């Protein structure tokens, strides 16, 4: 019962905000936030029931067909997700009240946000694969709404459409997996699937199911090659980026694989595939983060990279590590995004870090929040990211994937580099907002040759004021979690985190895990990489002489960015050439040939022939009564003659 309430509270908020937004005015935000907060409290209250047994809390809702039972389920895994979705979601809702203050469509914004929380809860609370797919599709829809929230911007609309289309590719993959499950198992409930799949599937079919599910993961969680929508999704308002494209929705793929852990445990091919894709995504995302200048795009690529870690972890079987990284990442990435929102808000929608600089003294709170976030994501010992990343990397090594481990360690170093680069360029040195953008290598045509002071309509000098408590408060709440939550993973087999799950995911084989190096050596290796990354960033952006010559340096760097990185490994270009252009060409051909000569011609011919038939039949209607009578008489004669002759023959 309580579970149903948790599930439906955000939907109530969405409907109320949608229907009564104009009447509620300024109360929409607080109301929607309160509903999500209430859902969070209710989830906390269900903690005991959820962790009671292996299956936790289960609420059957409806039976559609035999084997098609829909219900809600709150076990340990969905409990973690539900807590993050409602808890971090609540904080971001509160932050949004401050961030979206003064926007014309606040009610619409909060309706979408609550709708998203509802969709995400549908996804994680469902006890069957079809409910999961419904939630999966709904979060994609909510993401589409929110990326395109400022629909006056053509770029936002294009980004929303791109995200939606790529997500639908993933939905098709999941649907394919569901078809196979229903065809072979005949039931959609998780419990039935997990108990019957070893006998129902052959090895190849099992791999196909895993592949279909993973295509869904790759689209939703921005894994290579379906990742290109995530950086563009930053067109949405910053709280949206924090909630959907960092903390919750994009990690749905991690949830999916962790949820289907028994399938992955049984399929070695699927483990290798997912591990490789995850590691590749982590590496590509990190390298692309190094050359971005838009603060939100840097964070977007770092999100992609960190989700790569998670996917690699859950893919190779280190489920605890992957899920813990989701938990820590949700806190520190939300914190980083919300802090970037504070900066963007304070600088009047400036997002280019080259035009920031020197914000440490102007926005001290943002500096400290960003610093802690950067330390956490880089894996500095003592902060949360360190523990979870370590758990994933060492878990990967233990399960016999030294190459993936190597890529992960390397990526940790790159992560440290680009995150500290972001921190140094944004907060150190002197403020560069008055510098001519072209001196910084910025090629926006609308900004060329103008300074920010001229650009601002009110000629007010950019006042980097302290954030209002509504925006600072949620960040302040996130900070202790970003520091401390990772400590749950300390202690290997006997850590609180491992005991919380305690065999929940099962294992691929009963053979004991072993690794060529001990965990301490591995930790030191990762740490060395992080220090190298930090050192390079410090040498390039923190040294006093580097800071003095920062303007020509940023310009040179912007101009000499490797084309491969600047074009994001040509993924977008490849899709353009391979998919978009052929599709447009086919469309053109249809417009030119099929439409006029088949469809239009068909309609035209139908019209002409019916007109011709009409002319034919109207010539029979003479209006002369005697002609009608004659026709009837002739008909009667024929009738009689036929029967007379036929009767005579018989």
């Amino acid at each position: 019962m309580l579970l149903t309430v948790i599930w439906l509270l955000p939907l109530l908020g969405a409907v109320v905000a949608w229907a009564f937004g104009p009447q509620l005015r300024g109360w929409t935000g607080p109301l929607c936030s309160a509903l999500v907060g209430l859902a969070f409290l209710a989830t906390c209250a269900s903690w005991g029931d959820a962790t009671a047994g292996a299956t936790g809390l289960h609420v059957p809702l409806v039976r559609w067909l035999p084997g098609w039972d829909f219900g809600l389920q709150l076990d340990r895994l969905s409990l973690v997700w539900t807590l993050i979705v409602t808890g971090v979601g609540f904080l971001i809702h509160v932050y949004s009240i401050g961030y979206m203050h003064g926007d014309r469509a606040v009610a619409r914004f909060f309706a979408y946000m609550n709708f998203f929380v509802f969709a995400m809860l549908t996804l994680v609370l469902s006890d069957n694969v079809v409910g999961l797919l419904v939630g999966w599709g709904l979060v994609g829809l909510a993401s589409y709404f929110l990326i395109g929230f400022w629909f006056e911007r053509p770029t936002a609309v294009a980004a929303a459409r791109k995200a939606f289309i790529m997500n639908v590719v993933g939905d098709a993959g999941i649907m394919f997996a569901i078809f196979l499950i229903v065809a072979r198992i005949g039931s959609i409930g998780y419990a039935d699937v997990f108990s019957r799949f070893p006998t129902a599937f052959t090895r190849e079919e099992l791999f196909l199911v895993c592949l279909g599910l993973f295509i869904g993961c790759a689209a939703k969680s921005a894994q290579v090659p379906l990742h290109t929508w995530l950086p563009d999704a930053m067109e949405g308002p910053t709280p949206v980026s924090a909630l959907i494209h960092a903390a919750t929705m994009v990690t749905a793929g991690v949830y999916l694989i962790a949820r289907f852990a028994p399938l992955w445990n049984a399929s070695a091919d699927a483990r290798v595939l997912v591990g490789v894709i995850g590691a590749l995504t982590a590496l590509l995302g990190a390298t692309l983060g190094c050359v971005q200048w838009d603060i939100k795009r840097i964070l977007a690529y770092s999100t992609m990279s960190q989700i790569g870690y998670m996917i690699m972890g859950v893919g190779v079987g280190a489920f605890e590590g992957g899920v813990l990284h989701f938990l820590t990442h949700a806190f520190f990435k939300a914190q980083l995004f919300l802090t970037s929102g504070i900066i963007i808000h304070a600088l009047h929608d400036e997002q280019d870090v080259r035009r920031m600089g020197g914000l440490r003294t102007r926005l001290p709170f943002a500096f400290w929040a960003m610093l802690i976030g950067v330390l956490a994501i880089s894996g500095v010992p003592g902060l949360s990211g360190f523990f979870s990343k370590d758990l994933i990397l060492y878990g990967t090594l233990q399960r016999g994937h030294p190459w993936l481990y190597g890529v992960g360690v390397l990526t940790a170093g790159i992560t440290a580099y680009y995150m500290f680069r972001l921190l140094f360029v944004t907060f150190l040195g002197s403020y560069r907002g008055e510098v001519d953008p072209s001196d910084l290598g910025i090629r926006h045509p609308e900004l060329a040759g103008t300074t920010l002071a001229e650009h601002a309509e009110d000629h007010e000098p950019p006042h980097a004021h302290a954030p209002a408590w509504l925006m600072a408060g949620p960040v302040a709440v996130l900070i202790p979690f970003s520091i401390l939550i990772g400590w749950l993973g300390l202690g290997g087999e006997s850590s609180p985190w491992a005991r919380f799950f305690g065999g929940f995911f099962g294992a691929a084989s009963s053979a004991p895990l072993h690794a060529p190096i001990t965990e301490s050596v591995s930790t030191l290796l990762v740490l060395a990489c992080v220090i190298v990354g930090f050192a390079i960033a410090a040498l390039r952006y923190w040294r006093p002489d580097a800071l003095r010559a920062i303007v020509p340096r940023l310009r040179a760097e912007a101009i000499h960015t490797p084309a491969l990185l600047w074009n994001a490994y040509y993924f977008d270009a490849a899709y353009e050439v391979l998919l978009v252009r052929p599709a447009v060409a086919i469309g053109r051909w249809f417009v030119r040939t099929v439409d006029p000569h088949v469809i239009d011609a068909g309609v035209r011919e139908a019209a002409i022939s019916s007109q011709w038939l009409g002319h034919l039949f109207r010539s029979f209607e003479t209006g002369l009564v005697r002609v009608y009578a004659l026709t009837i008489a002739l008909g009667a004669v024929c009738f009689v003659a036929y029967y007379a002759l036929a009767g005579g023959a018989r």
Partner: protein
Amino acid sequence: MIVPPEYYVILSAVLFSIGVVGVIVRRNPLIMLMSIELLFNAANLALVTYARAWVDNVGHVFAFLVITVAAAEAAIGLAIVAVTFRRSVNVDVDEVAVLKG
């Protein structure tokens, strides 16, 4: 003296032919209506003849039905003729071809 049924059938056929020719050839609507009555009664005569010959009352029943229909037809037909006369003094049905397609 019993008149054989063939005579009745022949009379019926003759009456029917006269009616048909009347409907087709004449242009005066009143005459056409009268010819139609002739058709009905020719049919009635044949029906009654066969009913008598085969000792089957269905023919009689059907004859009564035809008489009813004929009455209704005469009422409607005369009404149409009256309306047509009111519209114009013309009594030629060939001129009243307003329903020409």
